């Protein structure tokens, strides 16, 4: 059993469906992310990205389909699954009136860490991001890019095997966005954390990334950038994306 779990993908989704009343938001979604893999979930606004994230984090629940994090079924073993995932939500979720340290220690406590361990991990993550000097600053005093970095530091504090980022660059300027994308790629490579990065911005896709195109709740394409562009007979991922999301659902 332990070996089975160790070999399991960081995230596995099988036949997932979800509807808001009569409106379908996700339809038979299949997804598998290997340990240490960086995957971009690309979709226009309203494609179902945030719904998918809400289901993977179990803020929503679906009766259709299976979600497993490192082999731990989210329904039956929610605690084990949650312990293995770090999440950066689309909306900022730091407490603006608390300091960076207080926010990070709070998160550590929510993962059952002692204050000492949480502080040590907080310093480790902040140093990695060259933000140690911000430890005692109130979050309100930080720039948008810095806040996002703190959120990522927080998401990594408990050493998750899967990091979920839902449009983490919303509200950031271009240079902060680029820096953040690079930073998470580096983290993925250095720490072997699987990353699912949801975005609707084409320029956040790297040439070597695996891309999943989601539209109207369905996966329209899944593969390396080159494979997707070749399959669509176009030069760029942007053109492939336009073509995929313009297609009428069958």
């Amino acid at each position, binding site marked *: 059993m332990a070996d089975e779990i160790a070999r399991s993908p960081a995230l596995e989704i099988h036949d997932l469906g979800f*509807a*808001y*009343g009569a409106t379908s*938001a996700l339809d038979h979604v299949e997804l598998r992310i290997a340990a240490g893999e960086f995957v971009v979930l690309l979709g226009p606004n309203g494609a179902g990205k945030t*719904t998918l994230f*809400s289901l993977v*984090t*179990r*803020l*929503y*629940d679906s009766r259709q389909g299976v979600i497993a994090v490192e082999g731990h079924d989210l*329904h039956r073993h*929610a*605690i*084990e*699954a*949650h*312990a293995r*995932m770090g*999440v950066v*939500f*689309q*909306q*900022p*979720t*730091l*407490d603006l*009136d*608390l300091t960076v340290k*207080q926010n990070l*220690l*709070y*998160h*550590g*406590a*929510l*993962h*059952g*860490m*002692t*204050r000492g361990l949480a502080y040590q991990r907080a310093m480790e993550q902040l140093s990695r991001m060259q933000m140690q000097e911000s430890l005692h600053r109130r979050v309100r005093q930080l720039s948008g890019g810095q806040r996002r970095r703190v959120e990522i530091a927080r998401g990594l504090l408990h050493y998750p095997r899967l990091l979920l980022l839902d449009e983490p660059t919303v509200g950031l300027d271009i240079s902060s966005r680029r820096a953040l994308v690079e930073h998470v790629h580096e983290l993925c490579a250095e720490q072997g954390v699987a990353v699912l990065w949801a975005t609707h911005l084409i320029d956040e896709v790297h040439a070597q990334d695996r891309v999943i195109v989601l539209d109207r709740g369905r996966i329209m394409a899944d593969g390396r950038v080159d494979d997707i562009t070749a399959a669509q007979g176009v030069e760029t991922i942007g053109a492939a994306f336009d073509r995929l999301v313009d297609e009428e659902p069958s």
Partner: protein
Amino acid sequence: MRVGAYWHCMRGVVGRELLRFVHQRSRFIAALVRPLVWLFVFAAGFRMALGVAMIDPYETYIRYEVYIVPGLVGMIQLFNGMQSSLSMVYDREMGSMRVLLVSPFPRWYLLICKLLASTLVSMVQVYVFLLIAYLYGVQAPLAGYAYILPALLVTGFLVGALGMLLSTFVRQLENFAGIMNFVIFPMFFLSSALYPLWRIREGSYLVYQIASFNPFTYAVEMIRFALYEQLNLTASGIALATTVVLLGLAIWGYDPARGMLARKGGE
């Protein structure tokens, strides 16, 4: 998860709530001003009009100020409980509630930690109020101030669970503010917080009946008796049972698979 991890989680949630409370001095002042106005102003005015006969747990005739202090303690907890739930709706809108809900602990445990945190904050407010009331001359037996601790805990959970349950029905902050007005004021005024039930019955039998069914009445009576070193078994039993039911419903409401949030399509 180890038992120690549960402890660290609770410490973190309670610590955050206390920190937020410390940072929001205006909230603390507002929470105190409200009951103090009742004590210093309204009670002085109503004293002659209402007067209170000898009733349990008091051993003699009492001033109106003495009578309403337990009700005002309940008022502090009621407002704090609702405000805490309001902040849950705010947190849900702003996203920080999600951070709590995706942590690797059972959701019922996380919600109980949240309720405990808001209850402890309300208890700090209550003791500061009781100190001021004591200095003003409303003095209960000293042991009574320790006896009310469990009563405050139960009342804090009761009103907090009610607010939490209400928060599952609304998605937007604006709606919740409206709901609060329909809950706080009827709950407070249609109870024994300001007048004894027998006096309410003299005025209106219907209002008396409503007040008799109001769980807040029993929470106030539980506090009143505890403050005078007595246990009102009926009031405590009803308050405790109501707390358990409301807490169960609130936990069900926040269950993503079964509760109200699931019906609305998510968090």
